[in-house]
């Protein structure tokens, strides 16, 4: 296809304006999700063809404005200003023109080839609001097209307009927003100076630069302050600031924004008629139940409980299917492949490693379906509204709550759920405390250890105590991080509570699938590599002596005629397991266990527990099975009586050691898959290193304290 016939279109609009639904309607399933470079903001792009043109659509993140307040705004603005898309479709919620048109005025400032989609027009008609679009078109200088994604109307018209605007079949409407004479005087003066800088004015609209300087836009200031024209521009700017303060008793930013709002208010007064007898809206009605003073909290708790239950209980069955599918695959591969290294690497390395990652897929899909539903209906903002006071006490945002409770199930989806937090410091803080919310995979470890070292009546309390301890550490950490690293960087809680709406099933499924796809892509690459690495570390180097010794033993067994076949097989299995135990002690992992013994011995842990902790970095499920291997018990689970006996028989182990070990498992790095996801969500290596250091340091310190105190109390 001819490159000239590709039209680059950007969708811009407020959050909750139905932008994503319109995007789905425009491009259908032909879309992909990625990341905007450098920031953890998702980038949706898709393509469609219309009248022989290929139309490439970029769905910009939803923003209320084009300042540089949040990463979303920076991304949207840079794309619009730097990439200069051929057509910009501004999607606005037509039931709420006052706020939505604010962004439109800023799109006018950058002289975008603008089409305005008056979205949710069916609701406008339902509410008997009459909008005079012709007049609105004249005032804003943009084509206005009524659309409705639920009624599927106006979509074709938007496509027609895109093509016609591109080919010049219809005129690009332009209008500039005129400010008061006072401001215009300074804007024009600055424009004149900017025009003398050919390079700058070719790249950026001088008028836009001038307006942005008047509202103290830091990014624009950084753009122009090194130019030679800056001295002259600055003179005009200073005069504007001084005169505005002196004559109008206000500042330029306030004045400009007030005029912008005044323009919108005037335009609406002129073009919109609302019917007078408005009855209580459905949203008001639902809100009076869902977030009222008495029922608000219990309903919130119920919803959170439901999400958790759905994610982890409903997810359990498919998880088991995936597990057994991978089991079958590894059994099949074992039977097909010849014995040796290749078999081991495929079965124990790759299949086990990737299986351990794919197994989280049902959780991720259910959780993100539920979250997309809450977000789509509008309850998510209410959830943050209800719980914000508690979270704010610890320096967190109301929206941190959902990722935190998800952490009780699994850190992987919990990390991914932090995307709802727009402010970087809030998001990083939440990411860093999620590992302390004890995840489901750690549970078997507690069951084994608490069940072994504590009486049945106490074990439950110990278990509960461990979970509670994790929450307390998480909250203290949040407070600590917020008062050191992120001092004063809390996101202000200024949030729209959007009207309740029923999201379309298609949109929900798309969002769920995107999350799953992102996760699977990771599983296929880095995690596969890591799985092989971990396999290597626990299998190499191999001791030839040990191998030879057991080879001889097996040979002797074969030659020994005392045993019948059954007995022989039983002894063979014992030998295999014993060999495994000795080989793992000889391997890199085993050596690491010995190497870190001096580090963990102050916590009362020996090299055996040390090895378990090392393998636990791969996945917490492995902790128990590693113990089984070390104690030469073969494949066992947490209820194995044999392992319990062996643990109790060790004179170095006692309740204090048990507590110390559990606390360490609770607090240190979650599994490898989670760490990869952490890195993806945090976006910077600095945070990944800090996360490793911080969780391990906290785990060590707390284990030490718990060990010493319990030694003192229990002995």
């Amino acid at each position, binding site marked *: 296809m001819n490159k000239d016939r590709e039209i680059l279109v950007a969708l811009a609009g407020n959050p909750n304006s139905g932008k994503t639904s319109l995007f789905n309607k425009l491009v259908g399933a032909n879309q992909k999700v990625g990341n905007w470079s450098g920031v953890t903001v998702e980038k949706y792009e898709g393509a469609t063809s219309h009248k022989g043109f290929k139309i490439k659509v970029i769905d910009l993140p939803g923003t*209320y*404005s084009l*300042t540089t*307040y949040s990463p979303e705004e920076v991304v949207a603005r840079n794309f619009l200003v730097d990439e200069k898309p051929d057509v910009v479709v501004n999607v606005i919620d037509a*039931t*709420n*023109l*006052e*706020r939505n048109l*604010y962004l439109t005025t800023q799109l006018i400032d950058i002289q975008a080839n603008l089409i305005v989609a008056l979205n949710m027009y069916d609701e406008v008609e339902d509410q008997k609001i009459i909008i005079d679009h012709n007049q609105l078109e004249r005032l804003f200088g943009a084509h206005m097209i009524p659309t409705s994604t639920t009624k599927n109307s106006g979509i074709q018209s938007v496509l027609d307009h895109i093509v016609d605007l591109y080919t010049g079949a219809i005129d690009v409407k332009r209008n500039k927003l005129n400010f008061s004479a006072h401001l215009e005087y300074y804007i024009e003066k600055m424009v004149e100076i900017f025009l003398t800088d050919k390079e700058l004015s070719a790249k950026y609209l001088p008028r836009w630069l001038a307006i942005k300087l008047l509202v103290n836009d830091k990014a624009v200031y950084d753009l122009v302050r090194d130019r030679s024209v800056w001295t002259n521009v600055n003179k005009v700017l200073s005069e504007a600031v001084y005169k505005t303060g002196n004559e109008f008793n206000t500042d330029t*930013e*306030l004045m400009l*924004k*007030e005029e912008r*709002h005044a323009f919108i208010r005037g335009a609406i007064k002129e073009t919109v008629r609302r019917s007078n007898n408005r009855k209580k809206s459905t*949203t008001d009605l639902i*809100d009076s139940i869902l*977030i*009222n*003073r*008495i029922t*608000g*909290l219990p309903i919130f708790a119920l919803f959170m409980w439901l999400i958790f239950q759905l994610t982890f209980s409903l997810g359990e069955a498919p998880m088991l299917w995936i597990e057994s599918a991978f089991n079958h695959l590894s059994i099949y591969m074992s039977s097909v492949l010849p014995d040796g290294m290749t078999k081991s690497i495929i079965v124990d390395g790759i299949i086990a490693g990737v299986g351990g990652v794919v197994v989280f897929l049902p959780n991720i899909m259910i959780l993100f379906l539920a979250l997309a539903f809450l977000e789509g209906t509008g309850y998510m*903002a209410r959830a943050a*509204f*209800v*719980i*914000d*006071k*508690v979270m*704010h006490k610890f320096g967190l945002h109301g929206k941190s709550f959902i990722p935190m409770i998800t952490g009780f199930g699994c850190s992987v989806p919990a990390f991914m759920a932090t995307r709802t937090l727009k402010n970087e410091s809030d998001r990083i803080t939440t990411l860093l405390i999620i590992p302390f919310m004890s995840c489901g995979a750690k549970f078997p470890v507690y069951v084994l250890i608490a069940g072994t070292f504590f009486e049945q009546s106490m074990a439950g309390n110990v278990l509960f105590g461990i979970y509670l301890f994790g929450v307390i550490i998480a909250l203290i950490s949040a407070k600590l991080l917020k008062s050191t690293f992120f001092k004063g960087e809390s996101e*202000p*809680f*200024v*949030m*729209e*509570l*959007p*009207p309740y709406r029923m999201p379309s099933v298609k949109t929900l499924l798309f969002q769920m699938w995107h999350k799953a796809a992102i996760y699977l892509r990771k599983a296929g690459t880095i995690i596969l590599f890591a799985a092989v690495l971990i396999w290597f570390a626990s299998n190499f180097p191999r001791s030839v002596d040990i191998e030879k010794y057991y080879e001889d033993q097996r040979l002797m067994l074969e030659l020994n005629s005392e045993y019948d076949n059954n007995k022989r097989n039983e002894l063979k299995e014992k030998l295999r397991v014993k060999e495994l135990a000795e080989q793992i002690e000889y391997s890199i992992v085993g050596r690491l266990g010995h190497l870190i013994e001096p580090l963990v011995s102050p916590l009362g842990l020996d090299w055996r527990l040390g090895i378990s902790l090392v393998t636990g970095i791969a996945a917490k499920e492995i902790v128990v099975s590693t113990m089984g291997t070390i104690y030469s018990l073969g494949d066992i689970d947490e209820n194995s009586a044999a392992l319990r006996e062996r643990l109790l028989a060790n004179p170095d182990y006692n309740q204090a050691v048990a507590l110390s070990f559990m606390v360490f498992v609770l607090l240190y790095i979650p599994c490898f898959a989670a760490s990869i996801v952490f890195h993806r969500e945090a976006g910077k290596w600095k945070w990944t290193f800090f996360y490793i250091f911080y969780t391990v340091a906290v785990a060590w310190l707390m284990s030490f304290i718990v060990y010493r105190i319990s030694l003192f109390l229990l002995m």
Partner: protein
Amino acid sequence: MISRLTYCEEGFSVVIKDLNAGIGALQNLNNLGLNIGDTIKLLENSRQEGPLSVEFNSREIRIGRELAGKILIETESPVIVTLDQVKVGDIVEVTKMNSAGDIRYRLLDMGLVRGVKLKVIRFAPLGDPIEVKINEFMLSLRLEEARSIEVKILEFGLNGYRSKKRWWTKG
């Protein structure tokens, strides 16, 4: 116009006009030694939390913030308060923005400019944040942030308050 005791400036003398509450609150007021029709002088009003202190018959009386919010008084000057002090149902007009930095950007972009009218919809179940209706949409913000916004009260949301006569009061 009618105003609330909590909105009052320190140092002013005002007459208790009525109570926007049930008989229980009236009894509480009587227990403090006050009644409808009394003239009191406001000594202390922290504007945010804690009880208010008033002078009546050269005696200092402390009134809890909850009760004081229900005491209606007559005032001539327009009532200017910060947005964290308003009550559910009040309709107010923004007169000044004292916030700075990111929050200022965000509030201005959301349309919280001078002259805009807000209706107080509700407080969160735990008392913070607050939800207001602005230009046809619902906005929530923390009291901490609302504190930097000055508003003029246009209409009091006197829930259920209709007549000055109560059937249970004598006369």
